[in-house]
């Protein structure tokens, strides 16, 4: 028999589907984090495939900072309705309103840190014992170190110096009450893989991922969209540019890139030639310090 090579997207897909099914079989209350961003959209498609023709057997949770792009929220609601899955919202605004957390103020304020509180509250309120996240190891150097099953203690903390060995495709999801496992089914996908998959599978994604004209300002080398949530600095003047988003997160700290790419094929060409990482180009939240991501992850961030 000829040893036919499996195309790499098929190998990645098969691995991700295996992970979804493993979690659904071994955990009592899994939940999937869904932001409406491209990674979580691909993750949702993989979950759909894993359980076909049955429905996805767990709810999805959106950690909502309140600073959203309308296109993304529309997409989220439409997709969730199509699939017939439950949507749980872990709201940062609600945490602020209840006085559980205090919001930063000023033009450079961000709700990024507060997301962790809303996320951990959401997980404990729902008594979830596993939470799927769309993190990829190619995104960032601390993520590059994370297991597919990432153990979290009762405070949601990650201990990068003491991770469980993870061999072959034998995942150890055992935990005590109050602890949980973060599961990253697309750990081994790169930004390029995601786009090639979106193209191959003809997956619809929110329009802001493709070129469009919008008013932006340049701040710290990034293009930030003008939204009601953004406070301008005195000398900042909005300018209309042809842009698209490489990542989609909180609207106040997700930057756009100048781009004429208007479909997956054009984005693929652009991504393949990119000289700056996806997060480096577009995420103000990652610029905090050299170990910004690691520190946030230790505290329970995605």
């Amino acid at each position: 028999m000829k040893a036919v090579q499996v195309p790499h997207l098929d190998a990645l897909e098969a691995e991700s589907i295996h992970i979804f099914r493993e979690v659904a079989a071994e955990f009592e209350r899994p939940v999937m984090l869904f932001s409406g961003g491209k990674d979580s959209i691909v993750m949702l498609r993989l979950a759909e495939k894993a359980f076909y023709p049955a429905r996805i057997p767990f709810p999805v949770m959106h950690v909502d900072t309140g600073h959203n792009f309308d296109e993304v929220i529309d997409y989220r609601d439409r997709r969730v309705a199509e699939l017939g899955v439950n949507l749980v919202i872990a709201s940062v605004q609600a945490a602020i309103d209840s006085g559980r957390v205090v919001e930063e103020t000023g033009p450079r304020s961000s709700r990024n840190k507060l997301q962790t509180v809303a996320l951990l509250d959401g997980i404990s309120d729902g008594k979830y014992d596993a939470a799927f996240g769309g993190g990829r190891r190619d995104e960032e150097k601390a993520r590059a170190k994370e297991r597919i099953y990432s153990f979290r203690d009762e405070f949601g903390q990650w201990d990068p110096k003491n991770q469980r060995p993870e061999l072959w495709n034998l995942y150890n999801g055992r935990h005590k009450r109050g602890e949980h496992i973060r599961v990253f089914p697309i750990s081994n996908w790169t930004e390029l893989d995601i786009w090639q998959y979106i193209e191959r599978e003809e997956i619809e994604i929110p329009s802001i991922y493709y070129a469009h004209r919008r008013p932006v300002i340049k701040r710290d080398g990034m293009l930030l969209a003008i939204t009601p949530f953004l406070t301008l600095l005195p000398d900042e003047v909005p300018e209309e540019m042809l842009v698209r988003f490489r990542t989609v997160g909180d609207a106040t700290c997700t930057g756009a890139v100048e781009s004429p790419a208007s479909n997956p094929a054009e984005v693929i060409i652009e991504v393949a030639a990119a000289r700056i990482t996806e997060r480096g180009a577009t995420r103000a939240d990652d610029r905090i310090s050299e170990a910004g991501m690691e520190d946030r992850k230790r505290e329970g961030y995605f």
Partner: protein
Amino acid sequence: MEMLRFATAGSVDDGKSTLIGRLLLDSKQIFEDQLEAVEKTSREKGFDYTNLALLTDGLRSEREQGITIDVAYRYFATPKRKFIIADTPGHVQYTRNMVTGASTADLALVLIDARKGILEQSRRHAVIASLLRVSHLVLCVNKMDLVDWEEDVFNSICEEFSEFAAKLDIPDLTFIPISALNGDNVTTHSDHMPWYGGPTLLYHLEHLYIASDRNLIDPRFPVQYVIRPMSNEHHDYRGYAGQVSGGTFRPGDEVMVLPSGMTTTIAGIDSFDGPVSEAVPPMSVTIRLTDNLDVSRGDMICRPRNASVATQDVDAMICWFTERPLSERTTYGIKHTTNNARCQVRHLAYRLDINTLSRDESATELNMNEIGRVQLRVTAPLFVDEYRRNRMTGSFILIDEGTNETVGAGMIIGTDA
């Protein structure tokens, strides 16, 4: 595109992370912001040169201590191939993380510091790679710049390693003299070592014929999850979801289900993208059976004349990961394919001496980072194959039932105690 997964190995400070950094940099896979960050840190720390190891040593403690603690996964592609790299730690304390990275690799890059020669940790990693049946091993003799690019140094290390490797099971062994720091023989040929006529490391990685670890002969399908839609449209649907772990499955095939031993045929193989005419490893699919048998997670679908062995007695090599030693009569949790059970260590046959490869039969325990052969008695039958025949149905992990930690990795040798 073809994908090659490889892991680094070798003793602490032999230059593994530097090599990966160099490989990524010289094949233009490092983004500007990543390189800038590493250059900045190197300057701040007062290094004479940019420390490329910082490209993979991403944790705060790793940067503080200048060592790798846990595996870093990196991805890169050339026009020839797509690569998944696991850069693993050399420090003996973190051997479990090296095993983690190597368990899914097709190829191991074992680094040796040319000044130090072959160390105990180099041997341990070579033994682990061979036990895990990583089919290709490349021995990179690194830091050639520090031994005046001497051919003799390279040759004598190769000779010593060949002698040692002869006692191991390593189907494909290659030697390359390099300087990770300067990039000699990494992506371009070195002017300093005209005596070396072989390929550069990158050329070798791009061109070697990848011996597949997939078993395409013995049909094995561990049932992972039963799909019952409970919807009007698919009222009576019952599908067995899982990942093909060996051989080929086609609609109409006669199959046997373990543990019941009942036989039936495959009514259809389903996927979101439509019916599947042929399922091979590593595809994740859903199998429907013609007869309504009692099948659940942990069962194994195979063929009547080609089946896994159903057994409660397992004979295996174990790598031990934790401070509390493995000892006879202790009970652990065991995960094998999609089965969870408990097992007791009935007998420790021997502990392997990493340096001499001799067997210490007087050993009564396995300490952290040691390797040995054990007989286990499992609370329920597992459906197993020898690891050398099938990585997926021949491997298992041991779990401490008190702490829930993964404490050992097992590779099945035989199925009768």
